[in-house]
């Protein structure tokens, strides 16, 4: 039985709607774990998609179900038509990737399955040539992007270290007949590499740079959130960009602030009076606050939610009742007082989560493979069997090969032969 595969099957986000397709024997099961009960075959239903592990809401989406063989690929298929924001799509794809038995589809794989199962004919399938070009183009773009940051060199350095580790292990296996036990130095080096990869994985990634830094304005009802947003987007310093907003739950204003891409967001749900809806609104606001890269809090400073990058402001500074200096930055949307300071503070905090201009940062694909490599090496320090240590290094190497598109054993042998004097 083949794997169940998934992929974004519409164009690249951002877009109004994105279509994520899952195909294979486990497609229904996997979709259910995100969306709950699926609609009847060949019908659509609105479902909340949640991360099955954390319960976190990913998006509200239109879910379509098809039962094989009456589907595009001839297998069981589920389609999520979700919001087309990059963050939403990424979060759903990432979640699908954590489900056992599911993997990202390779280019052309849906089409191949459709053809295999007799769902499309040759003329259609031969459109695959376009796919190859698309793949090449995306590789070229990816390569360019990577080359620009010098990340390629960093990745090559890691790969080189892995090759050396592999070569050391393979030499000991294939050529050392001495019964000296396992080489602790090798394990230590591998462990060090795993730690280094871990550090890189925890560094700022490029997605905020592409998607924008999420700045969430929150506070109790009538605190002046909307006025503040209007005032900020009216400021000359903050240029409102014309990238379309992506979500319906809250207002999102894309801005460019000191050259940084910002998504300025209001927590709109808080203002609805009805109790039940109010509760939902509070919950959503809570989630937004958690997701915020920068939080702008308009309430009592002592009641501000805990957040690593928060600006506490005292709004409506123009009102006489407002006493300055009570633990917040006085700002008036009306007179513009404190506005410059506020924007400067947001910019300063935003810079923390963005990679520095000259720093190297990872994109999702790179992070995925590096993560694979790091987790393969995890625990290598405790290995007592050299063969298993070598297997861990091999799996890590395969992850890097997928990243750089280079294939394996010959490289190891080259490293082996150039470094060690072998042969009796």
């Amino acid at each position, binding site marked *: 039985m083949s794997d169940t595969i998934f992929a974004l099957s519409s164009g690249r986000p951002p877009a109004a709607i994105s279509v994520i397709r899952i195909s294979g024997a486990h497609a229904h099961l996997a979709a259910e774990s995100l969306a709950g009960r699926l609609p009847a075959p060949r019908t659509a239903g609105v479902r909340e998609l949640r991360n099955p592990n954390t319960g976190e809401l990913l998006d509200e989406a239109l879910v379509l179900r098809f039962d094989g063989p009456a589907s595009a690929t001839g297998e069981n298929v589920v389609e999520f038509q979700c919001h087309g924001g990059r963050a939403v799509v990424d979060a759903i794809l990432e979640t699908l990737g954590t489900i056992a038995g599911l993997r990202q589809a390779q280019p052309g794989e849906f089409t191949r399955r459709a053809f295999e199962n007799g769902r499309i004919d040759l003329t259609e399938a031969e459109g695959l040539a376009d796919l190859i070009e698309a793949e090449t183009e995306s590789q070229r773009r990816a390569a360019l992007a990577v080359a620009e940051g010098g990340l390629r060199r960093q990745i090559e350095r890691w790969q080189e270290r892995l090759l050396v580790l592999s070569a050391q292990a393979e030499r000991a296996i294939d050529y050392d007949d001495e019964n000296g036990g396992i080489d602790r130095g090798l394990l230590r080096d591998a462990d060090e590499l795993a730690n280094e990869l871990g550090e890189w994985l925890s560094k700022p990634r490029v997605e905020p740079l592409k998607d924008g830094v999420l700045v969430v304005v929150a506070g109790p009802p009538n605190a002046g959130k909307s006025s503040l947003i209007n005032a900020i987007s009216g400021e000359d310093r903050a240029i409102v960009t014309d990238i379309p907003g992506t979500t319906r739950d809250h207002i999102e204003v894309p801005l460019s602030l000191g050259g940084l891409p910002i998504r300025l967001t209001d927590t709109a749900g808080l203002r609805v009076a009805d109790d039940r809806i109010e509760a939902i609104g509070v919950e959503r606001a809570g989630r937004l606050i958690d997701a915020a890269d920068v939080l702008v809090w308009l309430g009592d400073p002592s009641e501000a939610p805990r957040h690593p990058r928060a600006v506490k402001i005292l709004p409506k500074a123009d009102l006489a009742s407002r006493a300055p200096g009570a633990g917040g930055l006085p700002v008036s949307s009306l007179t513009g007082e404190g506005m410059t300071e506020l924007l400067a503070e947001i910019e300063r905090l935003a810079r923390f989560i963005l990679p520095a201009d000259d720093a190297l940062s990872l994109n999702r694909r790179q992070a995925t493979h590096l993560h694979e490599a790091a987790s393969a090496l995890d625990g290598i320090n405790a290995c007592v069997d050299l063969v*298993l240590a070598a297997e861990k290094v091999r799996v890590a190497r395969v992850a890097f090969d997928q990243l750089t598109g280079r294939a394996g054993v010959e490289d190891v042998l080259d490293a082996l032969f150039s470094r060690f004097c072998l*042969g009796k």
Partner: protein
Amino acid sequence: MHDVLVIGAGHAGCEAAAAAARRGARVGLLTFRADDVGQMSCNPSIGGVGKGHLVRELDVFDGLMARAADRAAIHRRMLNRSKGPAVWGPRVQADRSLYRAAMVDLLAESGVELIVAEVSGLAVEGGRISGVVADQVKLACAAVVIATGTFLDARMYVGKQVCAGGRHEEKASVPLARQIREIGLGQGRLKTGTPPRLDGRTIDWARLEEQPSDVEAWTMSALGCGGAQAQLRCAITRTTKETHDLIRANFDRSPLFAGAIEGRGPRYCPSIEDKVKRFADREAHQIFLEPEGLDSPLVYPNGISTSLPIDVQERFVRSIAGLERARIVRPGYAVEYEFVDPRRLNHTLEVRDLPGLFLAGQINGTTGYEEAAAQGLVAGLNAAASALGVQECRFDRRTSYIGVMVDDLTLQGVSEPYRMMTARAEYRLSLRADNATSRLGEIALAADGLRQERRNQIRQHLSQRGTNAWARTEEGAADELYAPYVERQQREWNVVQRDSRTWIPRELDYSSIPGLSNEMVERLEAARPETLDQASRVAGITPAALSALYVAAARRTAA
């Protein structure tokens, strides 16, 4: 009239002949000299890490090598004993003359006819092999296996001396090499070398570190036909600074560095002059002194293969501890020979463009007895299949080192002599020397042609798996140790298997497939993968290209 004729009675030829005969073919084995059957031209040992795995696999198919090695063993060692069981490597030192005798006996038992003649050409009719020309006489047959080792247009080098020949005091196959070139198979030249042989009576053994034979009783063959030979000791010594100085001073007299030899040598088995040159900072290199036999005083100093002139060999040997008075009986030499690009072969080792012709052993760019013998098995089984119209026998990477080797050779080709190493096997954790019967037993039974004794042994072994006592066996314990890792690998393999069921038509025109780059087309043309899975291992082939290939293959099959 023969069904199968095998040219060359070395390790590949003997196994090919016996394997074809076991499947019921009438087999003739052609050799220059009757004495050459099963000759160990280089080191007197069989097995090792990776190589021992090959021998055990060969044994499951009732091959000869393991049984002959057991009968001739004078020293046994399970290499890598301190490492995981996946890489334990059984190796024996074999008495040269006992080994030859055992091989002759085993061949005779399998009903192979030995023919002493020089083959000067192949007979081809209607695009298919129809026989060979031996001593001006045409011998008709349905399939031919060429297993000429290093003898194709071979040249031996000692210093500036050059002579034609594939082994000490033996000739070369020049006319056959010409014809192989004419049918477009000649690829290039490779080189290998051998150390000088020493007179063991002139070695000061008392001063050297001993390497005793294993105490545990184990055998190469699962049939356990262990020889009760006296067990000899090997010894270890090292080169000295003086050795290195002497060699360095004579670089200009080595045919390797003087440019006389164009063929590429194996990087993993370099000559001593190579080691001194490339690893100048090393103060000493290890040498294993291996006795060649019970009745022979010859000792094989493993580690100092060389083609330096005789006077230099004599001087540097005497600069080594324990060898100060050692006498060289036969100088070391380098041999350069012609080989064929193995990408011209199918996974059955049949030449793609000339049905009925199979190639096995060093002619395919490999080195080593075990690599040769294992290919002999593949070629022999399939030459019989071709001649008799029975089922082909294929090996895959997941279940055997034999499969790894054939796949590497026929898809990647070689740029230096190919030697088996466990690093080449991505499924190494499940390819152990101790579980060859479990891995390949069913396939061997299905291929037919096993002797009753072997069939019984395989069936008995397979029936023991899954019993309660199994976990307590060495093999069962190793299964358990690697189980979680093997499970992960099995998932990788499932994908491979699906693709391996998609056959690519032989005559497929890659350049007609939309979307393949010129470079991809070139590489696919050279490797001519038989299945989609094989295509995925050709360097530079992307997943999308595979999809396009799949569609094209399916269209051709349907048409």
